[in-house]
């Protein structure tokens, strides 16, 4: 079968035509899928590496690393889940 070099695919390297290109290292699996990154009642912020910087969840999904901590109104988020209306619910440390 072989591989293909296709303009605009896989940074010019051989690819498998039927498959989407692999994500880059920085785009490895996000902490949560981007489309559930909705916030109800305010914006969370990322502790590191941008301490104090407020950002939308959609930005955090791209920027977060495994070692980062996500905060909401000063509380660390320990769990997050979707409710039936596609809103993100989060749990905090008190």
């Amino acid at each position, binding site marked *: *079968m072989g591989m293909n070099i296709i303009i605009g695919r896989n940074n010019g390297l051989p690819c498998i035509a039927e498959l989407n290109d*692999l994500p880059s290292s920085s785009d490895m699996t996000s902490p949560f899928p981007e489309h559930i990154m909705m916030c109800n009642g305010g914006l969370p912020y990322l502790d590191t590496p941008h301490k104090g910087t407020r950002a939308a969840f959609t930005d955090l999904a791209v920027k977060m690393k*495994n070692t980062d901590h996500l905060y909401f109104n000063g509380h660390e988020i320990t769990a997050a889940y979707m409710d039936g209306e596609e809103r993100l619910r989060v749990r905090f440390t008190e």
Partner: protein
Amino acid sequence: MQGSGTISDPYIITNASELWSMPLYGDSSLYYALGCDIDLNGCFRNGNVTPIPLECAGLDGRGHRIRNLYMNDQTSELSAFLIYNTCREITIKDLIIENFKIAANKFSFFSGSNCNLKLYNCTIGAHIRSNANPTSRSSFMNKNSVYIHAELCSFILRIYANTAFNVFVDAELRRCQVRSELIYNSLSTQSPSYDRYFIAYSTINDCIFVIDLKPLSTTASYKYFLNTIVSTVQNSYVDFSSSDTTQFIWNSSPNTPCFCISRTPDTTTYTGSARAYILTEAQAKDVSYLESIGFDVTEE
């Protein structure tokens, strides 16, 4: 569940409870399909260490996703999917597994015994932490005697482990691509036993491996062995990078021309073998050059 469990009228899984209910319906001749995406975030199973049971002949994802499985028990041996002993062959197709996060003492993604697991057009994305190595003749993807046959699949894996271990063993990969971010506490400076290769006892055709190695401790002359002890490797390539000075070794000869990409600046040293070429990035993008070494590629 809706459906009758036949290949033309499979049981339709629409939520987490149904996903875990195969053994209740159970036997190994039944067929299942996903009726929607299943998000395990916040469901009763999230954080539970019970793997998703597979007791069926086939699971058709129909393009849907199972996402956000979270398991954390670093004293136990865990798996994401448990294949029941009654199953000798299972086909999983058109399924996206996304954002599985599992931390265990030992971990293999698919566990079971004496089963051929056929994956077709699937994507598996997972973060894995395994404190100890899986059982002998196992890998992070499959426990011993689960034989993976994957075609047109993508594996996107971030693996944190104490030391290097097989990512695939007893596998057949055809037209697949693998991105692995490997975070290891330490690496060997010696030739490894058979269970320290990225791939062992496997057949590889037309595959792409992107390996990003991140050893956490520093020792001079790390060695990382791609392949492929007792394996057949044809028309595949490796894009390897390391955060440290590592020797990347193509340990045994592929069966047809293959290559890895040596980037500059790069502190990695590369060791090829017969039919295993070390190419620059420019050469790896050049159809004429690839054809000249016998690599099967066409330009579109």
